């Protein structure tokens, strides 16, 4: 059985980081988790972001959820906000796309245009 002593150790180890993080604005990754999002596959997408953030040890990135963003046909949708920058909305996100979004956008600040809602709109108008 996993022991609570391990949690105690995690507490000691991460408390400083947690306090530091509270003091400055970080990057937010928000996944739509309403019925539409969940049915379209939001659960593995959200957990893929957690795994990627955890693997890379990205300290100032928070993965969170929201309800229905309002365009159910484009779910799973993910909104990413880097500090001081406008929100970017990714649509029809799959777990396979997550690693590239984290590497290029979250870490290096380059939006992955082809996955964004703007690209999806352009595709529809063709």
């Amino acid at each position, binding site marked *: *059985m*996993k022991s*609570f002593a*391990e*949690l*105690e150790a*995690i*507490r000691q*180890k*991460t*408390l400083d980081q*947690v306090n530091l993080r509270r003091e400055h604005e970080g990057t937010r990754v928000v*996944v739509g*988790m*309403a*019925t539409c999002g*969940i*049915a379209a596959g939001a*659960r*593995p997408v*959200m*957990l893929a972001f*957690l795994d990627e*953030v*955890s693997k890379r*040890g990205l300290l100032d990135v*928070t*993965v*969170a*959820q929201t*309800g*229905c*963003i*309002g365009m*159910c046909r484009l779910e799973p949708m993910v909104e990413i906000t880097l500090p001081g920058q406008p929100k970017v909305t990714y649509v029809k996100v799959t777990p396979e796309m997550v690693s590239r979004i984290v590497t290029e956008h979250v870490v290096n600040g380059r939006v992955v245009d082809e996955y964004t809602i703007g690209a999806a709109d352009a595709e529809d108008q063709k």
Partner: protein
Amino acid sequence: MFELSLHILDLVQNSITAGATLVVIEVIYDTDRDTLTITIKDDGKGMDEALLARVTSPFATTRTTRKVGLGIPMFKQCAEMCDGTFTIESKLGEGTCLTATFRRSHLDLPPLGDLIDTMRSLILGSPDKPDFRLLYQIDEKEFCFDTREIRQALGPVPLNEPAVMEWIHEALKEGFDEVESTHNEQSE
């Protein structure tokens, strides 16, 4: 929804939106009675009788982005399709409890799916409030998981801290393995 655990993930969002501080999720298999029972109980704001009466309709929703709400109706349909039942009880100011039973051997019963991922998503998505208590039971073997105990051990460190999420993942895997392994030995 392809998995019952996705329905659970979806329905618990209602509890979260209702401002619950504790959501109790129970998944209970009973081999002798050939049933699977799923219960979701919260202490959120509850519903008045008028809303409760129409909440199983696909055209009832509290959100404003559109006019349909499919979470509860789809779950109800799924239970009834599997020779099961669906009940929802709610009191304004006290909370809501929904229960679905399924005939376990029914051909149309969807797989439970990844309940561990459902719990991880719930905790990651709502790390501050509510607390979650999960009871996963197969006949007499059961596993109980309660975020209140974890929160107590962590103090000011939030549940969505990656190291904590990893611990939670491992703890859930161990608990589920324990329940499922004993069960498989018996059925062989």
